[in-house]
């Protein structure tokens, strides 16, 4: 794929994030949990990259590494042209002007003792982006942007519903006009009828402000709806990356196929006749992942080579990358 440097917001190269397993009073290290094991991808300006996978696959850890809430074990994170993977905390802080984050639980991510106006305006104050007088104007603007009434600015979070809280979290994430917004399961804590409101809001804001999203979620149909490209993760590795349309029309990796076929479709006529791949067993522990391809113990297509050889992501045409030797 030909992309000029300027278009790339984030490039991740061979990112690894291991968490040590310690035991005993001396906290001796006895192993590693390989939460993220050699992941590479890029996110271009004004696009949404969806990251899907089941719980424990490392998708949240990838997001947190990009925000540099974790210091990666190895690999590079090139954010807006500079490598931030090993920068000390004091150098990271100014970079965070360009990063926004929306988390899963809008009840836990807003300080219950601050007014919502204070919460939304906090990034502006921390980064000295607004003087006292400007601040309330800017917060006003942000409230209007996410569809909240600015007169509610002096209330505290518990007076708001889940959907409204997530709007507040979005307003806060956008306060400094970030280059990248990491959305980590932003709708999974909300009621079904509210989810669509938030998805539509995120899509509208992207069109209006030219935002770039990393959208992390486990719900494949939601990720596919909001994303331009989708990366599927399994046990710390990316098994397939392609455009949202292609992922649905032409999935290649056996895990992607199983994941797609497990998503229920609200149409009884289709559901009753649809062939479904039901995976055997469960996701192995990331502390003791299988040799070779991580997916081979549950894969219908596995051959003896799959037990030994770790498949690398390779392009099969049109930007479609897959990590499987049988494809």
């Amino acid at each position, binding site marked *: 794929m030909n992309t000029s440097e300027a278009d790339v917001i984030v490039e991740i190269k061979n990112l690894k994030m291991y968490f040590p397993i310690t035991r005993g009073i001396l906290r001796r290290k006895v192993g590693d949990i390989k939460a993220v094991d050699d992941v590479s991808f890029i996110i271009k300006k004004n696009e949404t990259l969806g990251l899907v996978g089941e719980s424990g696959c490392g998708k949240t850890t990838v997001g947190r590494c990009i925000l540099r809430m974790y210091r990666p074990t190895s690999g590079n994170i090139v954010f807006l042209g500079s490598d931030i993977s090993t920068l000390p905390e004091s150098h990271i802080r100014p970079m965070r002007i360009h990063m926004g984050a929306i988390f899963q639980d809008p009840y836990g991510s807003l300080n219950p003792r601050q007014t919502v106006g204070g919460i939304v305006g906090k990034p502006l104050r921390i980064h000295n982006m607004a003087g006292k007088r400007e601040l309330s104007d800017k917060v006003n603007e942000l409230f209007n942007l996410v569809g909240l009434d600015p007169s509610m600015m002096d209330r505290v979070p518990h007076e708001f519903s889940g959907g409204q809280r997530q709007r507040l979290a979005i307003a806060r994430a956008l306060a400094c006009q970030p280059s990248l917004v990491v959305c980590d399961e932003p709708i999974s804590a909300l*009621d079904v009828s509210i989810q669509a409101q938030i998805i539509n809001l995120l899509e509208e804001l992207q069109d209006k402000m030219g935002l770039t999203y990393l959208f992390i979620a486990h719900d494949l*149909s939601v990720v*596919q709806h*909001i994303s331009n490209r989708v990366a599927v993760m399994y046990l710390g590795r990316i098994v397939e990356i392609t455009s949202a349309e292609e992922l649905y029309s032409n999935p290649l990796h056996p895990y992607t196929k199983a994941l797609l076929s497990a*998503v229920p479709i609200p149409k*009884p006529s289709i*559901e009753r006749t649809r062939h479904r791949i039901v995976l055997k067993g469960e996701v192995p522990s990331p502390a003791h992942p299988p040799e070779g391809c991580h997916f081979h113990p549950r894969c219908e297509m596995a051959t003896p080579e799959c037990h030994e050889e770790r498949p690398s992501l390779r392009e099969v045409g049109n930007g479609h990358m897959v990590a499987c030797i049988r494809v």
Partner: protein
Amino acid sequence: MAVLLNVENLKTYFHTYHGEVKALDGVSFYIDQKETIGIVGESGCGKSVSMLSVMQLIPTPPGKIVDGKVIFEGQDLLKYEAKGDEMSSIRGGKIAMIFQEPMTSLNPVLTICRQLTETMEWHLNMDSQTARKRAIELLKLVGIPEAENRIDAYPHQFSGGMRQRVMIAMAISCNPKILIADEPTTAVDVTTQAQILDLMKEMTERFNTSLIIVTHNMGVVARYAQRIYVMYAGRIVESGLSDDIFDNPQHPYTIGLIDCVPQLGETRSTRRLVPITGVPPNLIDMPPTCAFLPRCKYQIDKCKSEPWPSLRPVGDQHYISCYVNTREKK
């Protein structure tokens, strides 16, 4: 087919400091033998409370079943004492329930064996040896490998999906007539969800059990349920055969619920989502009119003056509680 359980005009209220919460306000539904029904709605709509009311598991106080009938095999279960012997022999024996949280619904300090055999010893008068043998068979049946060894394990040694399998084994252990699954797959991943639902269907078919699936996910019931009830704010707003509900929804809430979730294969360019505006109502302060009115796109003048409409037929076995003919307005 004969009606197995018939719930009529069930009303369950909770008394709180802020006022009376009408969690269920006149709910009626039925289930036939060997039938699978789905009960769908958002959190707080009363779907769990209606199941707990059937089982008489409502914490009293603050909750109270104030009116209604629950007819099971010709007997009104609400006539029985909640803690009496008659109810205890039905609960877990003839009507079994699987709860949402497999983590919290198993006792962490008892072995799987103890928890599985307890119900069988109580309901079927088995001695502990026979019960243990049957427990191992059940674990094999629900797909737990090395059941002979794992039966003496504790719940924390099992994964979430495995625990849900144990719950299923426990629920079917006394050959219940009805199995109630309250959000059985909300806490598990999507590939595990498929395994669990298929297993539940297989087990109920094998033991001729009727199945009630309670969920907020429309997709989950589409594959399995023959009939569906849609609940909103403590009432049933639409009921019908599952093909009718999905292909020809009539109540504005059901229409909204189907339109607001992205379907697999849809992208931003193919269809924008149509959200339901506003928020679910506060059950303490319910308007006398239709509770969905503030969020409804189809409303007519009559909706603002008349009380909440009762269910009216719009087709074969298809009922809605709405004054509007949405089919004409669409």
